[in-house]
């Protein structure tokens, strides 16, 4: 990390600086998200051709795949925040981790639901214990664990550090779980099952898929900013309420 980026990250540790930045960018980001979604959806429905093998159901991919990307991306970001909490005690890192977890769980849930809706016409069942779906399900459970631990511990500092440790333990274990689930599924996979990653992704699908991915990313960043802004205000309000209670 260069001095400059670490310097600006350090400046963000001041909630007032974060607030100013967030207030300035949330509006434009929301508009940008909306435009990207409009562009991406237009591409998904009118530009991308139906797949020669999967037909029109390929339209589901434009939600399913970006949601899967976000499920992983959000967890990676949470792990970075966890390091920030534990090593540098960066006060905003803990806020970011807390606010990112429900959003990540949402994307993971969406990935599971659309995967199931795609699996029914393609595989003939709502749920196939295929390696990818199973890994995403485990990831969803880990998200739920992080959120549940966060809510269970009342003291904010203690909760922040416990959640950070759990997040890192999950991050270390996710590749191992992924590997073992892949290995396990090669034992059980019936050969006739159609693979969702498919033999080819046609070039004209990649463009809209990419735009949908960026749209999901922008939506995430906007919502994260909004949620962090709310969390900062909540903490300040909590302090003021505490002071008022002590003064009485």
């Amino acid at each position, binding site marked *: 990390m260069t001095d400059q980026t670490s310097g600006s990250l350090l400046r963000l540790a001041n909630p007032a600086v974060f607030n100013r930045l967030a207030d300035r960018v949330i509006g434009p980001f929301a508009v940008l998200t909306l435009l990207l979604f409009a562009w991406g959806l237009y591409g998904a429905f009118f530009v991308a051709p139906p797949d020669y093998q999967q037909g*029109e159901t390929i339209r*589901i991919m434009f939600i399913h795949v970006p949601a899967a990307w976000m499920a992983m991306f959000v967890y990676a970001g949470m792990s970075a925040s966890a390091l920030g909490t534990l090593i540098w005690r960066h006060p905003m890192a803990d806020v970011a981790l807390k606010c990112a977890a429900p959003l990540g769980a949402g994307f993971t849930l*969406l990935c599971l639901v659309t995967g199931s809706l795609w699996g029914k016409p393609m595989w003939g069942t709502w749920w196939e214990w295929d390696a990818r779906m199973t890994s995403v399900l485990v990831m969803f459970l880990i998200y739920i664990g992080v959120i549940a631990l966060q809510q269970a511990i009342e003291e904010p500092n203690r909760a922040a550090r416990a959640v950070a440790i759990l997040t890192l333990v999950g991050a270390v274990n996710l590749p191992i779980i992924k590997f073992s689930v892949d290995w396990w599924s090669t034992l059980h996979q019936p050969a006739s099952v159609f693979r969702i990653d498919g033999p080819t992704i046609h070039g004209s699908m990649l463009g809209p898929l990419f735009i949908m991915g960026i749209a999901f990313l922008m*939506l995430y960043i906007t919502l994260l900013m909004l949620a962090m802004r*709310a969390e900062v205000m909540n903490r300040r*309000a909590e302090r003021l309420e505490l*002071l008022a209670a002590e003064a009485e």
Partner: protein
Amino acid sequence: MAGQYVGFIAGSYAAAILVLGAMIVGAVLSYRGAKARLARAEALRDAEKSGR
């Protein structure tokens, strides 16, 4: 070909609207709630200050 899968495609996009919509509404509501709570707390503090 297209007709028989319309339900699944519509279902997927409905799920997306539901899940992403819930995330958006949740974020906006919590933002508003936090803003109102902070305003209340600040007003209370200011009232106490001027009262003393």
